[in-house]
């Protein structure tokens, strides 16, 4: 069952590559939160109940409900246009994200690890690099933030792999999630709008030699 959820997660990354509307991004993100909820619910059997509740709340409340709603609010408030404005056509994005998944797949075959299932490794690294790819090839600041949140999801999956034995690391990862999402999303997206008219990456390229 975990495998099915993680594979669906990977497919959602492919869909992310061809999505052109910001709303689609937000929906994918909420959906991924739901998948992570499922994975952590099934996998984390050895940790204390309180800790489990904390982690489940993080996935279901924070990732699935609060962040998507908040992003929606930010988009409405700042009147950001609905298009994601990629630098590259969707077709190429699709090929590149597929390549990323294949490469991590090949890389995972090089491991002769016993404890960690390879699928965590593949999905986590795919999410990481797909997120970075989104950050590099999209023009808007809000899509950068979304790419970053995808990266965070990848980190969350990887930390699930060691979560049973070392819940402390899992909690630290969640701390990273809360802290940075609020900081990056909340404060700065609003502040940037105050100073610049157009929250576009081109306005943020005055610092150079």
């Amino acid at each position, binding site marked *: 069952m975990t495998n099915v959820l993680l594979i669906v997660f990977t497919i959602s990354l492919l869909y992310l590559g061809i999505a052109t509307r910001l709303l689609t991004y937000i929906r994918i993100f909420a959906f991924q939160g739901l998948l992570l909820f499922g994975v952590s619910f099934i996998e984390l059997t050895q940790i204390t109940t309180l800790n489990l509740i904390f982690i489940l709340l993080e996935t279901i409340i924070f990732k699935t409900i609060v962040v998507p709603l908040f992003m929606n609010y930010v988009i409405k408030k700042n009147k950001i246009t609905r298009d994601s404005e990629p630098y590259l056509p969707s077709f190429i994005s699709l090929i590149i994200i597929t390549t990323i998944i294949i490469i991590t797949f090949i890389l995972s075959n090089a*491991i002769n690890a016993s404890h*960690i299932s390879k699928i965590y490794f593949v999905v986590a690294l795919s999410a990481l690099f797909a997120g970075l790819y989104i950050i590099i090839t999209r023009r808007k600041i809000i899509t950068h933030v979304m790419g*970053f949140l995808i*990266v965070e999801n990848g*980190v969350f999956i990887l930390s699930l792999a060691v979560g049973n034995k070392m819940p402390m690391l899992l909690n630290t990862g969640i701390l990273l999630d809360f802290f940075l999402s609020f900081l*990056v999303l909340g404060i700065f997206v609003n502040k940037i709008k105050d100073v610049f008219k157009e929250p576009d990456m081109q306005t943020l390229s005055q*610092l150079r030699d």
Partner: protein
Amino acid sequence: MPLYYFILAVVLIGCLFFARSKTLHHILLILFNILQWGFTIYECFHFNTEQLGYFTVDGVALIMLIVLSILSTTSSYHSVGYLEHQHKFHTTPLRAQAIYYAALGILIMAQTGAFLASHIAATWIFVELTTFAAAVLIYHERTEYAIEASWKYLFVCSIAITFAFIGILFLSISAQEAGTINLSYQSLIQHAATFNPFWLKLAFLFIIVGYSAKMGLFPMHTVCIDAHTVAPPPISAFISTTLMNVGFVAIFRTYTIIASTSILPWANNILLISGTLSVFVAAVYLLRVNHFKRMSAYSSLENMGIVAIGLGTGGIGYYAVFLHLIFHSFTKASLFYQIQQVHRVYKSYLIRNTGGYFKYYTPGAMVILLVFICITAMPPSGMFISEFMIFRAMFEKHYIGLLVLILILLTLAMWALGKNFFRLIYAPPVNFDSSHVGKISLKESLSQFILLGLVFYLGFNPPQQMVDLINEAIKNLPH
């Protein structure tokens, strides 16, 4: 004791944040510095004891803590001067000043925590905290440039810190496979030989890329450069010195874990590549730079490149790396404090708007001259000794080709730095109305003379305690 330190520090930071009177700010800042020094002195007498489970004062921590405390005092002093001056012309509201002081306090506290942490996750948490505090401080001037730089700093550092976290996760996977779930540095060093090399390689790669944003090393150096351009000078002094030391300590501790395993030569190569590229990028950009603070930032990049090369070379290089970091911290901090006065005279950071600094502010020009001697590692300065040791280590390890390349690049950097510094000091200024230049008192340069004096003195007469501390810091590395 660390518990009391953190509690008191948080209380003082809270007071700084809510206080709305200048005198109160100054008193609280003095109290904070007393606390910082008290804690430092306390730790000097509790060497190598574990405190609170997550903190140990070892050689690395103590060296960096002392450097940090010295620079905290000077940075606090210059921050007061900076805010007073800014207040006169731009009327910074007291609220902004309160935020500035509180963020400064958080930055100092987070750096202290990062140095002392003996658990890999604890280091990571404190490094994350420094990002937050530094971003707030970079935003202080609230211009378009400031928001751009702080946004970039926050965003790129966040990604970098995520990378470092992934590295830690890989390390924990390999630890778990080897049958330990204790992630303190001591336990990791003990068990490192049994770790799976594949995970270790991945972990090191991710950790070095992640913390390179803090250390200002090659792959993620760009954020530091942009941050310097707009950060208030006393804060630039921090970002360029102690915050880079934080990044270094985080990388160094991981390197110490790697040092007892079979992948050490591979890790050394990574460090050498990263260091060489840093020096290369710095030299190229130094040749075309037109902004004083950016120039200083590229010079920091160059020095961190040398540090990475020294660490990757090994041998006597390990010792020299620490020496170099100490001297670099003092020198670069002096330069940034002085740039504050340069800006006061010329109202600009652009190199083409400056000139004739000797005439307008003689002690400042002396400082710039001394900084030039130190930063280009000319003989009487301490940095000459540390760089010489690193080059000797490279020579002993037969990295002759690399050594020649580095020396050529350093010569280019030296030429570029000399050109710009001497233009500031001697060249007649173009289109400059000198009538509004007020008198700047000697006391604005006093701290720099002391710091630079330390660079010269410690280079030639290193006290036995310092030598012992550095040897203690590198005791886990192969000799």
